[in-house]
Each structure stands twice: as C-alpha cells, then as structure tokens.
C-alpha cells in the first residue's frame, strides 16, 4: 500500500501540495479529482520519487518511496510518453527485471495481449500507433515493472471519448484480474466514479474531501466538491 504521510511540496515560495495524507490500499483504485494547478500531478510525481517532498514522506509499505521502488507512473500525453526512437517492445522491456532475451520477449507478448494489443506490434514504433494504443502500451510498460502500485495521471484526458472507453474498461479489467492498486488522477468526475472505489478531492494543494466513492459523490460535504458535481449535471 502506498501512503502519503503529511506530504508538503514547495516550489520556491509556492506551495503545490499542502500537508496531504492519502492512502492507496492494496487492491483498490483511489480516484483523485481536482482542477489544473490543484497539485494532483505534483503529488503523482512525488508518488514515484520524481519529486522529493519538502516535508512529510511517501511510503510504500513501511519504506520511503524512491526511484527504484515498485511504483509506476502513467502519463497524460500519449504522444510524449513513449520514446519515438524505441520500438514498442523495447519500451515495454525497459523497466523489466533482468532476464534472458527470450523470457523478456515472451513477457512483452504477454503484456501486449494483456492490454488488448496484437503481440506482433512489439516491432512497431510509437508513430505507427493511435493515441489510445499508445496509452495501452504505456500501461503495459508500467505493468512490466511489476509494480505494487500504479499512478495514472490523467491518462484518458487527451483521448477521444470513443477511445477513452477502451482504456477505462482495460483499467477495470486489469484491476479485477491482477488486483492492482492504483491512484487514478483525473479532472473528470464521471471517469473517476467509473473506475474508483474511493475518491479524494484536491483543491489548492489540499485534500478537501476523501472517502468511499458513493459517499463522496452522493453526499458531498465540501463546497468545492458540490461545485464540481453541479458543473457536471447542468
């Protein structure tokens, strides 16, 4: 389980994340909603060790998270998430633990099938794939690192609706199959509601509301959550 323990992150005098405590329990998808600039992405980066908290700590189990911890991050922009010079197979194989060539190839095929892509695509380059397909490759790459937790940062917001559905369905399937733990970040409440069991709402760097999804969305306590919900229904 991934635990943010009173994490504060400052950039100069600006506080991006303000005393955030949040737990992603094993086998659950926690949705994190909030608008741009609310600190969601900074929190995501702290979750994999790309950004060090100014104070507080991020723990995986009982150990602080570092770059080598089994936590993987999937990004928003499918066009910059994959190295254009590497084949799909090479990208997926990169975070894999050391193994023989044949084993790695077999694992790449398995992962591609897991994300509903033809294993023969391993030899292709990202330019030959659509946005939705790239996001699935990015997911396969994250899974290749055998993570305990995956952090998904707005992974569907750059996709068309028709494609967004395939990625969300995939997330749900993977969660059911593999018992994934995931921090699912999105500005879209309907999307978060569909995949997450718990929802946390972030506003100006703080978590203003957190709880089981039906409770937070059905009976919001904080003004900002109410405002978010209201903007959806009209």
């Amino acid at each position, binding site marked *: 389980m991934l635990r943010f323990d009173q994490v504060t992150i400052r950039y100069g005098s600006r506080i991006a994340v303000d005393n955030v405590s949040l737990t992603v329990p094993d086998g659950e998808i926690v949705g994190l909603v909030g608008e741009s600039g609310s600190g969601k992405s900074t929190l995501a980066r702290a979750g994999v060790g790309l950004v060090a908290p100014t104070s507080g700590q991020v723990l995986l189990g009982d150990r602080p998270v570092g770059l080598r911890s089994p936590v993987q991050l999937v990004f928003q922009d499918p066009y910059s998430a994959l190295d254009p010079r590497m084949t799909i197979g090479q990208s997926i194989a990169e975070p894999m633990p050391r193994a023989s060539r044949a084993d790695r190839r077999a694992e790449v095929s398995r992962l591609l099938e897991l994300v509903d892509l033809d294993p023969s695509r391993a030899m292709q380059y990202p330019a030959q794939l659509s946005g939705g397909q790239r996001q699935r490759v990015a997911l396969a790459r994250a899974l290749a690192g055998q993570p305990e937790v995956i952090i998904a940062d707005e992974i569907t917001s750059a996709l*068309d609706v028709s494609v967004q559905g395939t990625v969300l369905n995939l997330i749900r399937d993977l969660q059911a199959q593999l018992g994934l733990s995931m921090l699912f970040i999105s500005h879209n409440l309907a999307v978060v509601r569909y995949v997450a069991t718990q929802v946390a709402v972030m506003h100006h760097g703080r978590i203003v509301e957190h709880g089981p999804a039906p409770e937070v969305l059905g009976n919001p306590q904080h003004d900002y959550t109410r405002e978010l919900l209201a903007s959806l229904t009209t």
Partner: protein
Amino acid sequence: MSRWRSVLRTPVGACAALLLVGVLALAVLAPILWSAQADRVDTDAIRQGMSAEHWAGTDDLGRDLFFRVLVATRLSVELALLATLIAVVVGLTLGALPALVGSRLGRYVVAFVNITVAFPGLLLALFLAVIFGVGARGAVLAIGLAGAPAFARLTQTLVAGVIERDYVAAARAAGIGRFRVLLRHVLPNIAEPLIVNATISAGGALLAFAGLSFLGLGVQAPQYDWGRLLGDGLAGIYVTPAAALAPGIAVVIAGLAFNLFGEALAKAVGLTTPLGRALPRLPRRTDSSAPSDAVLEVRELTVTLPSGARAVRGVSLQIAPGEAVGVVGESGSGKSLTALAIAQLVEEPLQVRAERLHFQGADLQAQAHRKLLGTSLAMVFQDPMTAFNPTQRIASQLAEGAREHGGLSRQAARARVIDRLRAVRIHDPERRARQYPHEFSGGMRQRAMIGMGLMGTPALIIADEPTTALDVTVQQQILQLLAEIRAADHVALLLISHDVTVVSAVCDRVLVMYAGRVVEDLPAAELARGARHPYTRALVAAVPTMESDRQLPLTVIPGRMPDPDDVSAGCSFAPRCALADAHCAAEQPELIASADGRRIACWHPAPASLALQES
C-alpha cells in the same frame, strides 16, 4: 531514415554529397597514388609556373605542387575531422553533464559553458595554440577545444528539451539510472541536429586549420597541409600565382563540400512536414443564387491538404440569426478546419474551396470582405494563452481591431474596451485593461478573448473548443457567458467541441462530423436520446456519465477513424459500424434532409421512433 536519404534527392544535397565523397576519396587515395610524385625533388624545375608538365607549377625544391595539393588532402581533412571529433566529444560531455550531476552542480557547468561561448572561437584557438605549442597536435587540440563550447551549448539546449518529456520521467520512475537514460532516451533523440551541426563545423575546422597552418602555427615541415602550401605559395603570388591558388581552391572546395552537405542535411532533417506539389488552382464553381436570410451559408466546403487528400469533404451548413449550432466529432474529423475555413483563416499549403460561402449575404470568397470578418465575426480559440500577444497590454490588443475597422479614436476605443470587458464579467475592468495576458487566469483570458470578439457588433461567434483547456467549474461560467451574450444581442454561435455534453447544453442544433463529412444534423435536444446515425449514437453512448452502470463495461467504438489519405469509396464509418453491409462499404451515403429539417447520411439510420424506444 528516409529523411536522411531524401537529402540526396535535392539538387544541392546531391551535389554536396558528390563533392564530399570526392574529397574523402581523395583524402584516402591521393597519398597512396601520388606520394612519390609529390615528394620528388627536381632542382632543374624550381619555382616554375603552370605548365603542361606541372599543372600548378613547382615549389622551392622543384616538387610538383598539383600533386602536393592532392596529397595534402589527407592531412588537411584528417586534422579537421580530428578537431571536430574533439569538439563534439568535449561539447557533448559538457552539454550532457548538467543532466547527469543534478541541478546544483549542473548550474556551475552551465555557467562555465556560458563563459566559454562568449569568446570568439578563432581567438580561443589562437590562444590555445600558443599554450599547446606550435605544431599539428597543438593546433588540433586548439581548434577542437575552441569548437567545443558551441557544441556544449547546443547539446545543453537539446537535452533540456528532451529531458522534460514524459518518457524520460517514465524511464527514471522505472529505476533506470541517469546515465542509461541519457544514452538510451536522450542522445538518440537529439542525434540528428548534432550530426548536422558536426558536419557543418567540420567545414569550419578545415578553414580554421588552414588559417593556423598559414600563420605557421599549425602543421610544420616536412609535413604539409593546404594551409602550409598556401602560406609557402603566397610569397611568390605575383610570380607564380598557381602555387597559392591551387591550395586555396582546394580549401574552398573541401570547405564547401562539408558546409553544403551539412546545410542540405539540416534542411532535410529540420523539415517536419513533407513539401507537397503545388496544386493546380481549380476554377471556383460558385453558386450565385439569391442569398438567404441565414447569417452563414456554406455549401460544399472542401479543405484540401498538400498531399491532395481532403480533410473536409463537402460540408454544407446554414446558421440562422441568433441560432447556436454545435459541431461535434473526434480529433481528425475536420471540425476545427471547417471552422477555420469559414473564418478564412486557412492558409497555404491548404486549399479551401466552396460552392458557396456567404456571411450575412456577402460572399466571403470574394477578397473584399476582410472588414466584415473583422467587425461582424468573432473568433474564440481553444488556448487563450497563445491567442494573445504576451508583450502587449489587454487593452491595446482589444482596441486594435476597433481602431482599424471601426475608425475609433484612442479614447473611444479605450472606453469601448472597458465596456466590453465589463460585458464579459471581468471585475474591475479599468485596472484589468492595463494588465498583460499573463496576469489573467485561463478563464479570464477566455473572457477577454470573447470580449475582443464583442468589440464590433458580431452577428456570429465561432468558438473552437473554447472550454477544453479550462477547468470544469470555469468551463461552466464561460458557457454561461456565451449563452447570455447570445440572448442579449441575438448573436449566432458556431461552437466546435469534442464534448457531446457541452454542445448539447449550449446549442440549438448539432452537426456531427466524421472523417471530414457531416454525418448527422439534428436538434441538440435529440442528441442524447433521439440520434439516428450509428456513429452519433455510439459517440453519445461512449461518454461516461454520473449515471453509467459501474458493473457494465463502457460502450466503445472499435477501430479508428480513417486518415484523410485513405478514406474509402463507401461510408467512412462502415468499418466500425455494427450495422454495415456490402452496400455501406461500396457507396457513400449522401446527407439527406428530411421533412423535419434534420439531415442524416446513413444507409441504415435508426428509425426516429425506434431510437426513442431503445433509450
């Protein structure tokens, strides 16, 4: 790879490559073939001019200068390449170092490079040549090190661009070390410009080396390169000009070969869009039937890409005064291009053609209507940050159009700006008008953008994804504002969006676009439940809502939209459509209007009543 090869297909690239291969071949072969002739001393033929026997004359010892120039190719090119290699290696190391050592130490490296870049290269080379001592080795080191700062700077800039990419962050988050990230992800992605630059600077090194040798700081006797031959020959330039001219010409040719090849590479590699052939300008088929009372009337609008493919394929639409029409579709459906084409904002190499493009009864395709566009048509773009000039105050940007088209005085324009900013609900407009775009939040910039459109008296607002870059709560306010403006001034709206919910909330009527065509035209109220085109229905169903059943998988549309280059003869949606049959694949359905004003292009539309029942 093909881009590299395409260099050879340009005339300059082909010539430069030929020249370069020639120079390199000479560098390899000349000493093997002609060393004997070049070194043969002939005391009977000292300091001769050009002759049939000695094409470039002879030197102090009667050695044949033509052969000496040929043989000198190897040393000259070799030393230039060696110097370039040093420049590249040192430059790469210095340039990549900040990415390796972290930001604190990296800052010192950057500062050091900045200081060295400030010195002129040749001055640095002369200075270093003195330090390393006179001779070929010293000169190579000097020219190499003098070239390094420029390379380091270039590398730094390129590395900084790539290291921001998500795939670098992904690799680091996967526990890949900084050094391996640099080797695997960063360097391959910046190799192209570096190679191009190295080629060009090899030409520079060649010239610099000739210069040092000429000054006596470079190659020393008995070795000789072009620079030394030039220096030796210059003494007798009035008696035997060929002795100086021959090595001079050699330097020019070799330098040209490297530089031209580098430039040709740069042009080919730096080019992101393939250059298309110029399309023949087709005569316009304009329809001169009487204008209707519609604000906007578009018939058979087509946008052609440089490749000849059509991104917008015969779009027809009408907007009545005060009406709000939405255009929805996925990326690549041609919806934004349609909007831009209507506003006459599509430029070469794209071509716009329409049978009819009338705005307020005036033909927009006739050049004389720029002013009409400036005063009666307002455009709102997706990204309000890039739509404003960051160096100008909001007031002067808003006033620009009004002063040009409306002929307002400075004071009148300013008053109007403040009035309009107030109209788009910006608080304290007097103070805000004096501010710069970066002092505005995203939502406020979008308001200001709308305010700019309201400076005239618009009959139509074209808004291209006006809320996509904004947060949901702000999005709501902007849509509200657009609705209020419409109601107050009876302004028509053409709203382009990928978001079905936004369009159905704001518009009266919705056009659904797919692969460059309008496939359905229906009342917005019908969108959620009464759509008849399978694509429209799938698009609506695919949007997760707060009511979606969490137990069921979300509806998806399998496959992807065809690119403009490979649209089929039949219905473009057929490959993804559950209802498609052979007829759909073979023949494209026309957009046919029905009695109730709806239009649909489908061979198997859901019957209006059934569509209702199913939902």
